[in-house]
């Protein structure tokens, strides 16, 4: 926010007429501003009134891992032929390509990075 520091006290509203009122307001504001209100348990009351922290159940991660594992196993067992065919076809395609060892190594490295990053993200501590 770009705040113009022009105080209302310096505003052009008939300054001579308002001098005594400005002085009265300024004096009251000074007194008002200099008096510190003791906490007297106010902060504790505020903290008690805050909404309770969201508690994540401890069983969340193992349950998620188990669920995804079951889903993956179920899919693999339900479609054994398809998975095998896809694997063979992919291997055949790759084998037919004129690839060099460094390219294979780069692909394997990329797969490793993606896999381990995903695992680290999934199992991170909140």
């Amino acid at each position: 926010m770009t705040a113009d520091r022009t105080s209302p006290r310096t505003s052009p509203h008939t300054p001579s007429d308002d001098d005594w009122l400005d002085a009265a307001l300024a004096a009251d504001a000074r007194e008002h501003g200099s008096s510190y209100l003791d906490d007297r348990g106010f902060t504790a009351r505020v903290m008690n009134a805050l909404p309770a922290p969201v508690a994540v159940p401890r069983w969340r991660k193992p349950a998620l891992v188990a669920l995804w594992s079951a889903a993956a196993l179920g899919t693999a067992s339900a479609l054994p032929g398809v998975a095998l065919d896809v694997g063979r076809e992919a291997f055949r395609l790759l084998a037919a390509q004129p690839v060099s060892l460094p390219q294979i190594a780069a692909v394997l490295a990329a797969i490793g990075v993606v896999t381990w990053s995903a695992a680290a993200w999934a199992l991170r501590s909140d």
Partner: protein
Amino acid sequence: MASTPDSDAALIARAVVADDRHAFAELVRRHQSAVRACLRRLTAGHHALADDLAQETFVLAWRHLGSYRQEAKFSTWLYRIATNCWLADARKRKEELLGDATDNLAEASGTAFTADAAVPDHARGATMKLDLERALAVLSEGERAAIVQCYYHDLSHEEAAYVLGMPVGTVKTHVLRGKQKLKAALAAWAPRQDS
């Protein structure tokens, strides 16, 4: 060696990122006095109501801390929430608004407000303060809020406009009208013009 206290920004970051309630408690401790004093002024001295609204202010601040963008000082942001809480509460209570308070103030200045001649010198300051508080209480919500932000918190018109969520021109109008009403109410305290 004493450690340097964390800045507001650092405490806010800890509260937002790590859900650190101790950091937020420190922010409350730092700003509770100013926020409660602001609300006491806005509620015209109703201390219990002001403290309830201050508590509501900090709870709202906690809930919306993630949306604080540091476009204004943290205290100014808190004043904005506090003012909104007060306005919402005033509307809920259907507080008696004096759209044109001049007439009432004229009556009040003749009966309730103390004439300066009747007050001994040693009591003038306290009596003036009391009269000022009562005069502020009969301003409209917008006028009172504008006067409080501009004079008691020493905010510029632009900062007050941010706190009150209204255009700068409206703030200036509220300040002007509020001061006119205060002058009428506190006419007994005005210096006499010898002609």
